[in-house]
């Protein structure tokens, strides 16, 4: 299942203040190299968590890549995001093995606990909930990944507990 794409950028994203100098090194590294568009976009996203409009414009200006081409690529691949995401990205696996082990229950439980749509971000920008194709841990299905950690053999209740624990540890920090 491809990540439910976030709606086209809103006014708010346009005004999001981003420090564009963060991608200077990236541009220096890839400028002029063939096949550089995807690495440039990946690097930009790694820096901001998404690709801000202003970054698109800067990339176009400094590398000579066409804005329309970049937008075409960014909307083609599931990896790229055009809107900011929460601090923690919850990826619920909906691969075949997870599907037959009731992965939709995990998504539904988290949706309810966080009051967030699939593909959406909580109001406090703490969590983003996504459905992804396959995390490759089929033998531990159903599985979800939060940031770099993978959790297996879940039930809806356990998934919610993990998410709530993250929220608690965020609050105490």
């Amino acid at each position, binding site marked *: *299942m*491809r*990540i439910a794409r976030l709606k086209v950028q809103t006014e708010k994203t346009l005004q999001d203040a981003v420090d564009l100098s963060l991608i200077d090194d990236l541009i220096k590294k890839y400028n002029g190299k*063939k*096949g*550089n*568009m*995807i*690495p440039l*976009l*990946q690097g930009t996203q790694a820096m901001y968590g998404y690709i801000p409009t202003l970054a698109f414009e800067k990339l176009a200006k400094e590398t000579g890549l066409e804005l329309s081409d970049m937008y*075409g*690529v960014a909307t*083609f*691949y*599931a*990896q*790229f995001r055009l809107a900011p995401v929460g601090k923690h990205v919850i990826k619920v696996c*909906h*691969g*075949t*093995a*997870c*599907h*037959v*082990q009731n992965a939709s*229950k995990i998504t*539904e439980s988290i949706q*309810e606990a966080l009051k967030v749509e699939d593909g959406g971000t909580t109001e406090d920008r703490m969590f983003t909930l996504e459905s*992804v*194709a*396959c*995390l*490759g*841990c*089929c*033998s*531990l*299905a159903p*599985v979800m990944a939060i940031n*770099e950690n*993978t*959790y*297996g053999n879940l039930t809806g209740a356990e998934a919610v507990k993990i998410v709530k624990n993250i929220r608690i540890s965020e609050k105490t920090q």
Partner: protein
Amino acid sequence: MKKTKVIVGLGSCGIAAGANKTYEKIRQLKEFENLDFELKKTSCIGMCFREPLVEIIDETGSYIYGNVDEERVVEVLEKHVVNHEPIKELVVKTDLFETKDHSFFDGQVKIALRHCGYIDPESIEEYEAQQGYEAIKKIADEEIKPDAVINMILESGLRGRGGGGFPTGMKWRFAKNSVSKEKYIICNADEGDPGAFMDRSLLEGDPHAVLEGMLIGAYAIGATGGIIYCRAEYPLAIKRLNIAIEQARDQGYLGDHIMGIEGFCFDIYVKEGAGAFVCGEETALIASVEGERGMPRKRPPFPAVSGLWKKPTNINNVETWANIPWIINNGPKAYSKYGTAKSKGTKVFALAGKINNSGLVEVPMGITIRDIIFKLGGGIPDGKKFKAVQLGGPSGGCIPEYLADTIVDYDSVNATGAIMGSGGMVVLDEDTCMVDLAKFFLNFTQNESCGKCTFCRIGTMRMLEILERITEGKGKESDIETLEELAYQIKDNSLCGLGQTAPNPVLTTLKYFRDEYTAHIVEKKCPAKVCKNLLTYTIVEDKCTGCTVCAKNCPVNAITGERKQPHVIDQDLCIKCGDCYSRCKFDAITIS
């Protein structure tokens, strides 16, 4: 006396099961208790259902312990390492006595996975100690010519393990025969099939084998550059590949005039995929490496003639590459002695779904599906009935129970309407609804269709709409016919493998489980009790004790009743989430 070794399996699946914590605990104990053993890391041995796994090698032999979570570490170390008393009931694999899981390994032949779970994937020395880089040395020392290498691969009978099943040697020959100063080889590690994870495991467990395979391929076809196109969803695999590439460069296995072979200059780098299933298709993958939208193009020209940057390019899958060094080291005959007339060697399968022993198995071609599921896989959990097995992911199909004696080779599997695919084997039991499963796959391919061909772009959407309608109880009698018509149109009129195979899950379920479709359409029933809109939850008055657990937990407050009195479900409010059913301790809730 040799020092005792303690080895922790740290593949992605092991880590998900808590292997990092196990490793940390062992490290702390070793330090604080001043225990005398060598602590090492390895990757996945394939036994995902027993993760975390810890292997202890002492002077008597090797013992692999299963389910060693943080709490069990102390017990295992104390009894085995300190007191030299193996805990027999926790051992899952050893040559010294029969374990309860021995059937998982009996019948396996490990060629592609030969090092997975045995060596430290981040150490080139450990790979070298296991015949590593000896195949390329052999080629250099014995001055085996590129054509002779290709002949060896041809003779081994190795066919593309990514799903296509095209003879690898023949593919190499085409690329070799193309004349160009620059040529490329690509390792396709864009394992997008939901339900398949053998490539991830191989890259995490034995990255050098893949590199050496590519090195041999580069020598054979005369390639100048190599690319590993790996899914970004596999961060650990990417990390270990990059470590391996660095090490190989340091040791001179990559670079200029490799192994002293004049003019053999070759280097490899890793390219992260950006998440598009269609990029498993060769021409789409090439477009993606070039930084474009990953859309397939018409063939010919084939990549062997005009591929990456319009240069001759040879693409093979991870598992194919990993087999190459073994074939060179052991000779093509050693490989072709396994398998059937037209499918030689071994194949790795990822067992998942409703199966007891889920994990990775490598078996000789020609074994029956039933043997894989029941002998190696340990059968179906909870005494449920085996219904079907899904092979080949979204491009494949379902093989029903009565055809489970089909042997695994490319042609026999194709004859059932499924495909071998990359080796994902998802086992389904009586609780799986085949219509729902077909809908799941179609939803996947519909999302992943790149949009180039009309039939694939719109046809899959129409098919999905029909399937959605059927699972919601709004199916029409003509729907099955329309589905079939659309399916054949899409197959005939799509450019690439994605579209040509997208209808397979629907066609095979229609072929073998047509009665389930009619049950949904005519009787408005889901026999497997999966499709929500066709279910009704009711409370059996005699069995209900009035414990109020269901009522308290019902998310929409659809359940009412006095304490210690039978409860009732308000059907208008019920959202069919199944929460009450899973919570009731008295089996008082029925689904119909």
